[in-house]
C-alpha cells in the first residue's frame, strides 16, 4: 500500500506528504502544553497569589493555542494537496494501464471502473488520514502519557492499568464484530439482489402470478438481514459503556488516591486536575486510534484492488517495428492458435487466405471464437501462435497504428460515447467532412434518423447512447467504422439489433459501395453471409467448413441445418450472387 502511495507522489507532492506529519507534531506539542500550564496557574499562581504569574502563563496558553491553529491548518492544507495529487496521478496511471492493456481475460469493465473511482477515493482519504490522523492520534496518546507521567508520576500507575485493558478490550470487540459485519453485508447484498431482480423481472412476476411467492422469499431474506444487523450492532454496543466506565473509574481513582496523596501533601490539587485532563485527552486519542485502524484496514482492501489493476501493466515493450502501412489488403491466417489457457484453445489451428477485394463470411455458434479471430487480427491480443498477415506483412512487424490504418471494425457492442453524433462518427477520423459522414450514414442506413434530428450531426449523444434505440446505436456504430475509409472492414455481428428489413438494406448498400474492397462479415444469420465469396464455419475454435454458399450446402451439415431453420425449406436456391 505504501508503495502505491510512494509511486504516485513526486516532487512537491512528496515534500508535502512528508512535511505534513512533521507539522502535525507541532500541533500535538501545542495541545499537550495546555493542561500543564493550567496546572501551573492553579498550583503556583493561585497558591502564591501571584497575579502576574497567572497572566504570564495564560499568555503562554494563548500563544500555544494560536500556534496550534497555524500548525494544524498548514498540516491540513499540505495533507489535502498531497492526497489529491496522489489521487490524480493514480487515476491517470490506472486509466492508462486499463486502456493500453492488451492481455486477454483481464478485469471486467465494471470492476475496473469501481477501482479507478471508489478505490482511488479510498486511497486518497487514506493519505489524508496518514498525514493528519495517523500522527495526531497516536502522538496525542503517547504525548499524553509522557506528560502525565512528568506532571504527576505518583498517579501514572492508574494509566498503566487502565490503558492496556482498554486497548485489549477494544481490539477484542472489533475483531469479534468483523465477521458479524461481513455476514450483515452479505445479508444486505442478498436483500438488494432480491429487490433488484423484482424490479427487473416485474413483467415475468406478473405473467406468472409470482407476487406472493416473491414476497415470501423477500420476507425470509429480510428477517435474515434484521437478525444479522442486530447481531452485528449488539456485538459493538458494549464498547461505549465500557470505555465510559473505565474512564470514569480512572477519574475516581485519580481523585481518591490522588486526593489521599494530596492530603498527605505529596502532590498538589493542580497536579490532580492536570492528570485528569490528560486522561480524558488520552482516552479520546485512543478511540480515534482505533477508528483509524478500522479505516486503515478498509483502505488496505482498496489498495489491494488498486494494485491488481496496476499489475496488469505489462513491462513488455513492443518491439521496434515498421510504421509503414502495407499497400495490399489481403488477409492471411496461417495455423493460428489462441487461448486464455493452454489446455482450452479458443482458436485451434485456424488457417485461411482472403484475397484483396474479396468478401469473407464467418458463421458459427456463440463462443466458437469468431470475435477472438477479429481481436487477433486487430492486435487486441498478441498471445497466439502462428502467423497473421495483412497485405503480405506479418502484423507483429507492424505498429499498432499501422494495423489500425488498414482495418476498422464495427463491433458487436455498439457503445456510443457521450458527446454529439459528429464526435462519435469522427471518432476514427478527426478530419472527416460532413460529406464523408453523410456517405457513411447512407451506407449504414443511419441517414434517415440522423437527418431527422433537430441538430443533425450536432445532436447530443448521452452517456452510452441512451437517447438512441438499440437499432439506431448499431447503425451509428457501423457508420463510425465506415467513416475512416480503411481498406479492410470487419462487421462483427454488427446488425444483431436492427430489424430484418434494415439489416437487408445495410447489406445491399455495403455491397454497392464495397464490392471490390476486402470485407469480413461475422454473423449468426445465414442471409448476412450467404453471398460472400468465401464462408468459414467456425465451431469450437476450429474451421469445420470453408467455401462458397453452394459448396457449404453440400459440405457442412451444420450449415445446411442452419439454412433450413433460418430460411425454411426450399428457398435457399434463390441466393443471389454479389456482382463483383
Amino acid at each position, binding site marked *: 500500500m505504501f508503495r502505491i502511495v510512494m509511486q504516485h507522489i513526486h516532487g512537491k507532492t512528496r515534500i508535502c506528504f512528508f512535511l505534513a506529519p512533521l507539522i502535525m507534531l507541532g*500541533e500535538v506539542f501545542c495541545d499537550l502544553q495546555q493542561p500543564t500550564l493550567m496546572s501551573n496557574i492553579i498550583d503556583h499562581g*493561585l497558591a502564591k497569589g501571584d497575579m502576574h504569574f497567572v497572566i504570564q502563563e495564560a499568555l503562554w496558553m494563548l500563544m500555544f493555542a494560536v500556534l496550534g*491553529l497555524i500548525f494544524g491548518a498548514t498540516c491540513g492544507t499540505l495533507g489535502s494537496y498531497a492526497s489529491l495529487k496522489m489521487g490524480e496521478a493514480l487515476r491517470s496511471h490506472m486509466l492508462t494501464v486499463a486502456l493500453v492493456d492488451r492481455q486477454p481475460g483481464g478485469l471486467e469493465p465494471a470492476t475496473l471502473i469501481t477501482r479507478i473511482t471508489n478505490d482511488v477515493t479510498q486511497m486518497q482519504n487514506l493519505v489524508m488520514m496518514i498525514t493528519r490522523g495517523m500522527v495526531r492520534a497516536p502522538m496525542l496518546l503517547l504525548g499524553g502519557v509522557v506528560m502525565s507521567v512528568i506532571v504527576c508520576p505518583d498517579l501514572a500507575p492508574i494509566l498503566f492499568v487502565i490503558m492496556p485493558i482498554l486497548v485489549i478490550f477494544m481490539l477484542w470487540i472489533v475483531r469479534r464484530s468483523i465477521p458479524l459485519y461481513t455476514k450483515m453485508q452479505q445479508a444486505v447484498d442478498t436483500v438488494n439482489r432480491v429487490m433488484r431482480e423484482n424490479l427487473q423481472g416485474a413483467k415475468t412476476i406478473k405473467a*406468472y402470478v409470482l407476487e406472493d411467492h416473491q414476497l415470501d422469499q423477500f420476507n425470509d431474506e429480510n428477517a435474515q438481514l434484521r437478525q444479522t444487523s442486530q447481531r452485528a450492532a449488539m456485538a459493538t454496543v458494549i464498547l461505549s459503556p465500557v470505555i465510559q466506565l473505565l474512564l470514569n*473509574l480512572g477519574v475516581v481513582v485519580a481523585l481518591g488516591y490522588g486526593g489521599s496523596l494530596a492530603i498527605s501533601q505529596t502532590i498538589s490539587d493542580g497536579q490532580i*486536575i492536570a492528570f485528569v485532563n490528560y486522561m480524558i485527552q488520552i482516552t479520546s486519542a485512543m478511540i480515534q486510534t482505533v477508528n483509524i485502524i478500522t479505516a486503515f484496514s478498509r483502505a488496505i482492501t482498496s489498495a489491494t484492488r488498486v494494485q491488481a489493476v496496476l499489475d496488469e501493466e505489462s513491462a513488455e515493450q513492443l518491439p521496434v517495428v515498421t510504421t509503414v502501412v502495407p499497400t495490399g489488403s489481403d488477409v492471411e491466417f496461417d495455423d493460428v492458435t489462441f487461448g486464455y489457457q493452454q489446455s482450452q484453445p479458443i482458436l485451434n489451428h485456424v488457417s485461411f487466405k482472403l484475397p484483396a477485394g474479396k468478401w469473407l463470411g464467418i458463421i458459427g455458434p456463440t463462443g466458437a471464437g469468431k470475435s477472438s479471430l477479429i481481436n487477433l487480427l486487430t492486435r487486441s491480443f498478441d498471445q497466439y501462435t502462428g502467423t497473421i498477415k495483412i497485405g503480405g506483412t506479418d502484423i507483429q512487424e507492424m505498429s499498432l497504428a499501422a494495423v*489500425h490504418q488498414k482495418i476498422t471494425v464495427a463491433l458487436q457492442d455498439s457503445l456510443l460515447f457521450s458527446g454529439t453524433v459528429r464526435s462519435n462518427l469522427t471518432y476514427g477520423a478527426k478530419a472527416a467532412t460532413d460529406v464523408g459522414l453523410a456517405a457513411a450514414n447512407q451506407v449504414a442506413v443511419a441517414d434517415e434518423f440522423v437527418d431527422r434530428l433537430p441538430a443533425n450531426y450536432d445532436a447530443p449523444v448521452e452517456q452510452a447512447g441512451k437517447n438512441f434505440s438499440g437499432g439506431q446505436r448499431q447503425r451509428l456504430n457501423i457508420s463510425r467504422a465506415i467513416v475512416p475509409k480503411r481498406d479492410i472492414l470487419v462487421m462483427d455481428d454488427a446488425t444483431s439489433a436492427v430489424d430484418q*428489413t434494415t439489416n437487408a438494406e445495410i447489406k445491399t448498400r455495403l455491397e454497392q459501395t464495397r464490392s471490390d474492397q476486402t470485407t469480413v462479415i461475422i454473423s449468426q444469420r445465414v442471409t448476412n453471409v450467404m453471398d460472400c465469396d468465401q464462408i468459414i464455419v467456425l465451431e469450437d475454435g476450429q474451421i469445420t467448413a470453408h467455401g462458397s454458399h453452394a459448396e457449404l450446402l453440400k459440405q457442412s451439415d451444420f450449415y445446411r441445418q442452419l439454412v433450413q431453420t433460418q430460411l425454411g425449406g426450399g428457398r435457399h436456391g434463390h441466393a443471389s450472387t454479389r456482382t463483383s
Partner: protein
Amino acid sequence: MDMHRHGPRNLHREKVQLNNWQQTVTRVWHYLATRKWQLVIVFLLTIVTTAVTIIGNRINGIVIDQYISKHRLQALLIVCAAMIGMYLIASVFTYFQNSIIIKVAQDTSARIRHDVFANLQRLPMTYFDTHDNGDVMSRLTNDVDNINTALMQTFVQLFTGVISVLGMGLAMIILSPLLTGIALLSTLATYLFSKAIAKLTQKAFMTQQAALGSLNTQIEESVSGKQLVQLFDHTTATMTMFNETNETYTKAAFRAQALSSIMGPFNNMTNNIAYLLITAAGAISILTGHGGITVGIIFTFLIYLRNFTGPINNVLNLINTLQLSLASAERVFELIDEAPEQDAPAAVAVKQTTGNVTFEQVSFAYDTRPILKDINLVAKQGEVVALVGPTGAGKTTIMNLLTNLYPLQHGRVLLDGRDVTTMRRQDLRRLVTVVQQESFLFTLTIRENIRLGRPDASDAEVELAAQRANADVFIKQLPAGYDTLLSENAHSLSQGQRQLLSIARAFITGAPVLVLDEATASIDSNTEADVQTAMTALMQDKTSFVIAHRLSTIQSADQILVINDGRVIERGTHQSLLAENGFYAELYNSQFDQA
C-alpha cells in the same frame, strides 16, 4: 466506526425540501408506537445517564474543594466509592439503552422494508415502465437505511445532546455565570466560523462535485469502450482529455478541502482558548476574591467545557441529518402510497377456459400517444395466430392487453366471451402463459426457476417440462445439473439456453392460452433449432399467439395478422397473404431477395 461522518461533507449542509414533515413524522411514529414502552424506558435511561455525567463532573469539583483541600480523607474515600457505584449503574443503563434502541430500529426498518416491497409487488406495470429502477432501488436501500440510522443514532444522540446541553448549561450558570459566558462565547465563535467556512467552501464543493461527475463519466466511458479506444488509436487523445478533467477536479477539490481542513484545528484552538480563559478568569477571580469561584469549580468547568461545545455543534449537525432522514422517509412513504393494481369491484374468479379469445375494436394509448387503433381478432380454441410487423408496431402491446397488464381505453378483450377486465387478474394470468422475448431468470437454481411456472410442481414435473422444452440435455451437462445456481439473470447461459428455460417454465403452467414473443435478436445457431421445436411442442393443443420473427412459425399459423403503426393492415394465411402481394409479401421477400 463512523469516521466518514466527520468528513468535510458535514460542512456542506444540503438544503432539504420537505413537503409535509408533520405527516411524515406521524407515520414514522405509527411504526414506533408498537414499541412505545421500550421507547419510554430508553427515554428514562437517557435522562439518568446524562444526569450522572453532569452530577459526576460536579462532584469531581466538590471533592477537590471540600475533601482534598480540607483534608477529609475518610469522607473522600466514601464519596469515591459512591461514585464508582453511580458510574457502574450509568454504564449498565447506557448498555440497555443502546441495546433497546438497536432492536427497535432494526425491527422498524425491517417492517418498513417489508411494507415497501409488499406494495411494490402489487403496483401496475405502468409504474415500472415510468420509473427508473435506479430511483426505486435507492428508495428501497439508501432511504430505508437513512431512516434506520436516524432511529438508531441520530435520534438518541439528538436527545442526549439536548438534555446534556440544557442540564450542563443550567449547572454551569448556577456555578458561575461569568465562566458560562466564556464557554458560550467560544461555542458561538466555533459555530460562526464553521458557518463562514461552509459558505466559502460551498461553491468550491459544487465545482468539485461537478468535476467529479464528468471525471467518473469519462472513466466509465473509456473503460467500457476500451476496445474502441484501441481500435481507433484514441488512447492518447482520451488520456489528454482525461488528464485535463482530472486536474480540474484536483484543483476544485483542493480549494474545498484545504478550506475545510482548517475547521478541525480552528475548533481545537477555540476550545483551547476557552480553556485558558476559564482557567485565567477563574484564577483571577479567586485571587481578587470575586464571584465565589473555587479551584473545584474551575475543574468542573474544564470538564463541562469538553462535554458542552461538542454536543452543541453535534445537535446542529444532527438536526440537518434528521431533516435528510425525514426526506428519505417521505420518499419511502411515497412508494408505499403508490396505488396498487386493483381488480374491478365485481371481479369474478375464473378457474378454467376453453381458450377462445376475441378482441373487439380495441384501442389503446400510452399517456396520450395512441399505440393501437381498432384491433379486431377472433382466435378459436387451439388456433395459432401469428402477429408480424415492424418493431414498434404494437404487437407486444396487443398481447399485454390480453393479460390485463395495461388498462385499455376502448373496446373489449374477451376470453370465452367474458371481458378480461371483469376477471380477477391472478386467475386470468394463470390461464394465459406468456413467454417473453427475454424472460427473466432469478438467482435460484435451474430447478427453482422452472418451477416458478407453477410453484407446487414436483421435481419430476419440472424435469419432464425441461425435457419437452429441449432443455434437459444442456441442463444435465452442467456440473450441478438441475441444481445449478443461476446468477445475475443467468449470464453464464447462452441466450438460446435462457430461452429454453423460459419455455420449460411455460410448459409447466399447463395454461390453455399461450403468448409467445419470439426474440428478434439472433441466437446461437445450434440452439435455434431446439428453440423452434420446443416452441412448436409448447403450442400443441393451446390457443397460441406468436409475435413471430421466424418463418417456420409464420408459415404454419392458422391466421397471420400484419400489424403496422398500431393497425391490422393485412390478415390471412401465409399463402393468401403472399398472393395478395402487399406489405407481408414485401416483408417476407425482403429477407431473401437481395441484390
